[in-house]
């Protein structure tokens, strides 16, 4: 969904291109990156703090680098070694052994060693506040060029997270009194860029000497904050902005059509699903037949075209909720190619078979009460609000009165966590495997009663088999056990429909090929294109001047 409710501003073509200090784009080797997050006040390049400017704007990945690069657009592809020239999992993904790459130096000239890698893990272990991924690190040891990290649980489903750990210079960081609160104003990392200047509105990075790989072609990266999607849209169309991630309603007309040759967007799906989450403790929505019937009539193409402007969130076709084609490899054979659409008649039949009745056009549950549903989403999330309107319209066909409502964002979050909702459009977690998504939707392990906050399974879906299958998948010793567990999960999902998937999460971005080419796209999906993903560095390293 597009957050940033409180924004306005609307313009087509602000004439002011980024004149700035004469840098119009590629000519002088500049790439303009933008984020719709609003100004970041503090010059802080601490990569571990989600609130630092470096994290919010995404430039942390241009300065600090991960151990390995995982391409989540092709989750089955093996990770590309990066700062670790080699890595090996053992002990059922509980032990990771890494080898530090030779010849890597920090931007202050000091070489990167295994000590630095170990320190980076140790830092997370010692500082709960910095362990944003909650990695259950048990011990970290470095010997020679190798580092061994031991985890408390199997990290199979978290491989990508672990490997994305950024390597920090121990010689500098160990001198910081409190790495959580002290600001890092002059970041030193192994990446190809260093911080050139910081203003709340714009952060400029510039290339450094001695990068361990081929130096990037782009001399300067300029990260600008915009206070909203509209501002971004106008900057994009004017050429002041070349790479960003924002939702543009009617992007074809407002963006691509303005310069079809260069104004591009690519929004590949990731392994997560947006959909209508349903509080499964709420009668009669505890009845899987009802949920499945609803799924049958929801028009995912309308949602894709009208709410997602035909690009933002790819429609989920597969009945398993897994986006395709990215999830094709995970879909069990019985559901390959099966789509979730149906017609009104079959949905009605499903309902009447399950004991529902019709009173005129109104659907009644088996006890004779009319079926009504309140669907809530934060007011500012225009695409979800539009989606709810469409769903409401769709459900009318089978006699359900579903009312869309707006909520305050915070209140809504609390309500979702506490299970105080009937239905809501919400996303699911995503990751390198379908585990994250299914776990988010169906895991009974952390099941909370309505009223206590939950971090998973907001719909309070209570299914022992699913819980077991999730645990099996995460801890399975081999591939076949995993496959079996995944098949079970898919079956339960399809039969019970604990959440009705509508669209997929994305790793997309809008970009311009006017000055720079070599962007990933469908024909060459070498990385997620989003500028705040760790792979952004990979993208930048791929870019070449257009002329």
């Amino acid at each position: 969904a597009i957050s940033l409710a409180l924004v306005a501003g609307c313009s087509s073509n602000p004439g002011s291109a980024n004149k700035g200090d004469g840098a119009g784009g590629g000519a002088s080797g500049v790439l303009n990156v933008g984020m719709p997050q609003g100004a970041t006040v503090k010059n802080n390049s601490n990569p571990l703090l989600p609130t630092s400017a470096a994290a919010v704007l995404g430039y942390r990945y241009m300065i600090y680098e991960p151990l390995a690069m995982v391409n989540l657009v092709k989750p089955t592809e093996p990770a590309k070694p990066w700062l670790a020239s080699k890595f090996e999992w053992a002990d059922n993904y509980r032990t990771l052994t890494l080898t530090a790459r030779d010849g890597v130096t920090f931007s202050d000239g000091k070489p990167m060693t295994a000590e630095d890698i170990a320190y980076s893990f140790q830092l997370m272990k010692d500082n709960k506040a910095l362990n944003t991924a909650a990695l259950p690190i048990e011990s970290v040891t470095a010997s020679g060029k190798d580092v061994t990290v031991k985890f408390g649980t199997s990290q199979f489903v978290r491989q990508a997270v672990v490997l994305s750990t950024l390597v920090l210079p121990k010689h500098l960081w160990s001198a910081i009194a409190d790495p959580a609160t002290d600001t890092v104003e002059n970041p030193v990392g192994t990446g190809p860029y260093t911080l050139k200047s910081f203003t709340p509105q714009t952060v400029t990075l510039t290339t450094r000497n001695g990068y361990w790989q081929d130096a990037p072609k782009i001399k300067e990266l300029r990260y600008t904050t915009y206070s909203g999607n509209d501002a971004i849209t106008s900057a994009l169309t004017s050429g002041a902005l070349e790479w960003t991630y924002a939702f543009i309603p009617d992007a074809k007309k407002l963006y691509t059509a303005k310069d079809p040759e260069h104004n591009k967007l690519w929004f590949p799906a990731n392994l997560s699903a947006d959909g209508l989450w349903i509080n499964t403790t709420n009668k009669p929505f505890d009845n899987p037949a009802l949920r499945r019937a609803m799924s049958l009539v929801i028009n995912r193409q309308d949602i894709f075209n009208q709410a997602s402007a035909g690009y933002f969130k790819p429609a989920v076709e597969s009945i398993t909720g897994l986006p395709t084609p990215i999830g094709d490899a995970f879909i069990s054979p019985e559901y390959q190619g099966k789509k979730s659409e149906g017609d009104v008649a079959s949905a009605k039949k499903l309902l009447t078979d399950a004991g529902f009745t019709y009173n005129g056009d109104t659907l009644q549950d088996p006890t004779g009460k009319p079926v009504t549903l309140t669907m809530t989403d934060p007011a500012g999330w225009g695409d979800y609000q539009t989606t709810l309107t469409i769903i409401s319209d769709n459900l009318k066909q089978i006699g359900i009165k579903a009312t869309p409502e707006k909520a305050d964002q915070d209140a809504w979050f609390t309500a979702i966590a506490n299970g105080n909702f009937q239905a809501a459009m919400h996303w699911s977690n995503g990751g390198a495997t379908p585990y994250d998504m299914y776990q988010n939707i169906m895991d009974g392990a952390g099941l909370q009663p309505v009223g206590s906050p939950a971090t998973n399974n907001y719909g309070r879906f209570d299914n022992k088999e699913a819980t077991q299958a999730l645990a099996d998948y995460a801890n399975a010793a081999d591939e076949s056990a995993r496959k079996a567990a995944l098949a079970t999960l898919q079956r339960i999902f399809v039969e019970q429909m604990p959440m009705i998937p509508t669209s997929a999460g994305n790793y997309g971005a809008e970009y311009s090929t006017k000055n720079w080419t070599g962007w990933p796209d469908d024909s060459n999906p070498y990385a997620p294109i989003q500028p705040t993903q760790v792979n952004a560095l990979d993208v930048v390293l791929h870019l070449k001047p257009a002329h």
Partner: protein
Amino acid sequence: MKYLLQRLGFYLFTAWAAITINFFIPRLTPGDPVTALMAQYQGQLDPQAVQSLTVLFGLDKHQSLWEQYLSYLGQLAHGDLGISFKSFPAPVSEVIGTTLPWTVGLVGVTTVLAFGLGTLAGVLAGWRRGSWADALLPVSTFFASIPYFWLALIAIAFLTGSGSFLPSSGGYEPGLVPHFDPEFIGSAINHSLLPSLTILVSSVAGWIMSMRNMMVTVTAEDYITVAHAKGLSGRRVMLSYAARNALLPSVSGFGMALGLVVGGTFLVEVVFSYPGIGLELVQAIGVKDYPLMQGIFLVITLSVLAANLLADLAYLALDPRTRREG
């Protein structure tokens, strides 16, 4: 003296009460900063980050609301506004420090301008009643009734865009580094033109109206007739006799308006993505950044009080009747 002491006591009480209200109301609303922040970065942040953020913001120490209040007051007494969640670990004072000048610069200057222009036009309209000046009124009434944001958006749609030198958003050219050089200042002024123009258009009417009405009232006073009888020049009667007296009631209104500069017009900044304190407040509210909200509220409260104090003093200076000897 006693008067000043009384005023001071009043200001202190008001400030305390406002601080207290500003402390409790946001906290009594549902939601908490961590989930709000997670929502802000929906999907961008590892779902596991909740715990680390809770620790980071110090929300894992389970203090009662009352304890939090006391420690907040204690902090304030030391001039410490706390640390913003949203821009962690930037201190609130720093966030305010970078954003406030923009707001004061844009809205403050425009308010002063609107007051000046409106008052001048009001003086003329009140003095030359029945002339063209009276036609000003219906027009300005209409403009005063337009929701500000709407006017601003229309202005953006029609006045910015290719070929126009007016930018549609931001406080200055993205590539520039805030610095006192001609280029930056020029860019900042260029970016403030449209916002201030729209504020001007929609707020000047109020001043015209109140000044005109006061002028009409004052024109009927005896001392104006005396001034005419003395054969003083028309300009002197209008400015030094009529307008000088008619201005007095507007002074307290102006104080109020100045006080509202910080708190009243955040839609301006939202619409124009202007890097001021209002936009910051809106974002702080969005992510339940209590310390930042409180800090900004404090600034608003203090600025209203300060503006009122200034208006009091200005009144004292302008109206000799309120001056006291001894």
